[in-house]
């Protein structure tokens, strides 16, 4: 009845009106007022059904649950990726390419838009990968497949786009530590402040472990990062970052005259600025400036002649500038175009001899047009990247990709693209010489000729399917890639000097054909259960008549991942990987197929505004497995076989 209703609300109103007497009550204006568009097209990530290629997304939560301690380990969760190295201090994550001789130089690693790779040596990304703290990462987007059309040289086998957390989102203090077997001792601390508009975060960490069995590959990485975000004016965002890291890594083998027992030190610092200006409703200008500096100390005495020291150290620096515009020109057309300038310089007398310092610069022009002739159904992406390299001349890498939504949530994708990898300063200019008493007695690694860029032609078809009723998504990519003009190290000796054999990079006259497919299935059968199934099949063939059908890359690999919520704020992760057989340095070093099972159990705690998490992780629960084999070491009286040992470690995290 009306009256009784009013009376009861009278009582409630008395209480609530007292409580909210001082409060700011909502009015109808809160409901009727207009609002500007905040998430405009330029701010929104492209839907996966429209991306010109296959994309795998790994979230912050996925990273934490995986128990991974560094970025390379996280990439095990991406189909087609292989993680390994010649020792545990030099883990590379490589996309379906032979691990041997691969240091990730054919994949572009971006951290908040700045390119991470070593200008000094071989353009490798494996050091750079260690220079980001996992707790600082918001999300990783991996574009599987060539992306030179958007990013230029070195994005041959794709792009790993690491996005760190915005400083406005990370206020307060976070402390984290891993500790356990195998010398695992990791520490992380971050502190952030923000007023909602401006933010700053300082984070620092150390990571250490003893690597694999019977090999000197202890690793100790220390790093510190400062990130500041601000809005200098309306619709403008500016991010400034300063990053410093130092890696000390075990290297080499006793009695090895090409790689003696020693410690390598890699020091890196970089500054970058990233400015966005949304000057109109669907238009944005973006400016990125980055300076990167690295210093490597890497030397060991030559075993037969200890007075001769092999020095592979030196310094390098890099400037990268990019200016781009992103715009939506009409309902059918939107895109990005821009200019870039890159300058790399390396200095090292031991490595470059009298050629030191060496440098090159490159001007770039790129564009990507998205045409939607049937909006929501058919999307065509046309992209191109042109570079003018001061050493190797100009190149152009185009791409054409079409996405067709054949039914709601089901997209077919097909396209062709070309990619390029320009030679690094080392590949172009290496000149490592042995001197004894001031006299030139040999060439360790000396480049006699200029080399040209590698080229990749990639044809792909793909399928992306979403089955919302079953909470299932499937992503399949089938590819036919041809790598031409691959730069390969080859020995030479013209007999002119006492010490034998030098090495140089030459263009491989034969092509490498990679054919295969990979898939990623993600299924959430129950609210607290996530199941991932990744699979890869690739056949790598070199059209050398003497080619033996062994695979220097595994033919098959698969991963099965389970993330399960448990009662009492606990969660468990099971990650099973099966990697097929592969070879290191030719058929003399077969690596059998192996399984790896990682398990993690964690519990969360909450008290007011403080949250904590304690976890236990076991890596390689199923037992030790062979990670690397080198027959040459057996001749040096070294084990030759290097095993990843099962290890347990505990983690503790506090956030307040």
């Amino acid at each position: 009845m009306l009256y009784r209703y009013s009376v009861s609300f009278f009582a409630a109103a008395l209480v609530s009106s007292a409580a909210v007497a001082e409060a700011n009550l909502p009015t109808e204006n809160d409901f009727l007022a207009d609002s500007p568009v905040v998430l405009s097209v330029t701010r929104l990530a492209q839907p996966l059904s429209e991306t010109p290629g296959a994309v795998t997304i790994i979230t912050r939560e996925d990273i934490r649950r995986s128990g991974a301690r560094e970025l390379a380990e996280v990439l095990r969760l991406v189909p087609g990726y292989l993680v390994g190295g010649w020792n545990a201090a030099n883990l590379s994550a490589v996309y379906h390419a032979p691990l041997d001789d691969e240091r990730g130089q054919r994949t572009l690693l971006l951290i908040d838009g700045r390119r991470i790779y070593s200008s000094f040596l071989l353009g490798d990304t494996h050091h750079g990968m260690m220079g980001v703290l996992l707790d600082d990462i918001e999300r990783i987007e991996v574009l599987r497949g060539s992306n030179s059309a958007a990013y230029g040289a070195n994005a041959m086998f794709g792009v790993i786009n690491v996005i760190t957390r915005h400083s406005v989102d990370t206020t307060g203090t976070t402390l984290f530590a891993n500790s356990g077997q195998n010398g695992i001792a990791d520490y992380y601390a971050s502190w952030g402040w923000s007023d909602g508009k401006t933010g700053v975060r300082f984070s620092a960490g150390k990571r250490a472990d003893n690597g694999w069995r019977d090999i000197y590959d202890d690793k100790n990485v220390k790093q510190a990062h400062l990130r500041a975000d601000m809005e200098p004016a309306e619709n403008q965002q500016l991010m400034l970052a300063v990053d410093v890291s130092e890696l000390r890594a075990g290297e080499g083998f006793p009695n090895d005259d090409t790689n003696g027992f020693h410690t390598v030190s890699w020091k890196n610092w970089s500054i970058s600025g990233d400015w966005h200006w949304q000057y109109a409703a669907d238009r944005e200008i973006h400016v990125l400036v980055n300076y990167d500096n690295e210093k490597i100390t890497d030397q060991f005495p030559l075993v037969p002649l200890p007075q001769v020291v092999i020095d592979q150290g030196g310094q390098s620096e890099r400037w990268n500038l990019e200016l781009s515009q992103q715009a939506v020109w009409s309902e059918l057309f939107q895109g990005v175009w821009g200019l870039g300038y890159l300058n790399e310089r390396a200095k090292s007398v031991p490595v470059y001899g009298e050629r030191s310092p060496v440098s090159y610069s490159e001007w770039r022009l790129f564009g990507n047009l998205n045409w939607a002739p049937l909006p929501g159904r058919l999307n065509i992406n046309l992209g191109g990247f042109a570079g003018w390299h001061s050493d190797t001349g100009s190149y152009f890498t185009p791409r054409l990709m079409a996405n067709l939504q054949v039914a709601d949530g089901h997209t077919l994708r097909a396209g062709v693209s070309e990619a390029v990898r320009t030679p690094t300063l080392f590949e172009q200019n290496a000149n490592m010489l042995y001197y004894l008493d001031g006299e030139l007695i040999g060439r360790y690694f000396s480049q006699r000729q200029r080399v040209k860029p590698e080229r990749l032609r990639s044809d792909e078809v793909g399928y992306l399917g979403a089955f919302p009723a079953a909470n299932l998504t499937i992503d399949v990519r089938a590819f036919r890639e041809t790598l031409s003009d691959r730069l390969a190290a080859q020995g030479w000796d013209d007999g002119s000097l006492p010490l034998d054999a030098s090495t140089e990079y030459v263009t491989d006259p034969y092509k490498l054909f990679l054919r295969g497919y990979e898939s990623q299935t993600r299924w959430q059968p129950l609210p607290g259960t996530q199941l991932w199934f990744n699979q890869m099949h690739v056949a790598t063939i070199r059209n050398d008549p003497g080619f033996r059908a062994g695979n220097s890359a595994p033919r098959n690999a698969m991963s099965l991942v389970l993330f399960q919520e448990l009662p009492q704020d606990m969660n468990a992760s099971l990650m099973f990987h099966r990697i097929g057989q592969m070879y290191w340095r030719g058929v003399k070093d077969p690596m059998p197929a192996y399984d790896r099972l990682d398990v993690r159990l964690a519990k969360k705690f909450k008290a007011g505004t403080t949250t904590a998490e304690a976890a236990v992780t076991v890596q390689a629960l199923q037992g030790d497995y062979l990670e690397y084999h080198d027959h040459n070491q057996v001749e040096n009286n070294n084990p030759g076989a290097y095993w990843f040992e099962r290890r347990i470690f505990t983690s503790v995290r506090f956030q307040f």
Partner: protein
Amino acid sequence: MRRVLLWLSLLVASSAAWASSVVWIVLSAEGGVYAESAAMLQGELRAGGLTDLEVVVGTWPTLRALPTKAPPSLVVTLGQAAFDGAAQPLTPAGPLPASTPLIASLLPSASFRAGEARLSGRPLTAVFIDPAPAKFFELLRKALPTAKRVGVLAGPVTDTLLPDVRKAAAQQALSVVAASTQAVGGEIYPALKLVLSDSDVLLALPEPSVYSSETLPRILLATYRARIPMVGFAPGYLTAGAVAALYVTPAQVVRETALKALAWSRRSDWGPARAPRELTVGINTRVAESLGLSLPSAETLTKELLASGVAP
């Protein structure tokens, strides 16, 4: 007993009053949505059969300046300010007579609850501009079936509503993760951080100390960075970037208000203070696609919410 007598006297008074039917429609401000709604309300009343009604439309200052007349048979206030003004003195003699029935229309339920005590003792009802929390959770269930934990950023107003909000969520098998700015010294972002870390979706509820034209863009960007969808309570949220919004248009409020007024004119129960039966669901497909979400269409969701038995 006294209650029954009071009720009878009101009936007598009301039936007598309808002999000289004067309805006051009080606007919170001149023009705009208030004037449009008033015009629409008059049309609805006429269409409902009240053709010999005298309607006076204006703000409280306008109405107070009127030459002395018989008090109105019914007062309909449009908006917060008009409702607040109803408790103020009308003439030097005093406020609106205690027997004058009042329909508070076009205002949020929280504001009505806070102010209804001042107007007690009279027949009072309201038509809210905000659907009940139960409807929001129903929308969440139907639009985002995989989202089980609903984040709520609370403040002084919504803190008092949290128990009801949690109950409504539980009825849809959803849980609420709430953080109040009052617990973190009035700061929004620390509370937002707590909420985002544990939620699958952020439900914006009317809370001016949290959601304003200045803070909404930042909150929306933070939720987008976390790849968490926001569901809002107004069409403006949809434009800004919320994945979905559940709201009631002024026209829908007016139609419900007219129903109440017509019920009163027929001396039947005009029902409790409530949001309109009609409601609107909006979807921002662009943002939804970007988040990898596939939502049913706005039309489908609107129909389902209207058809279900859950009271708005």
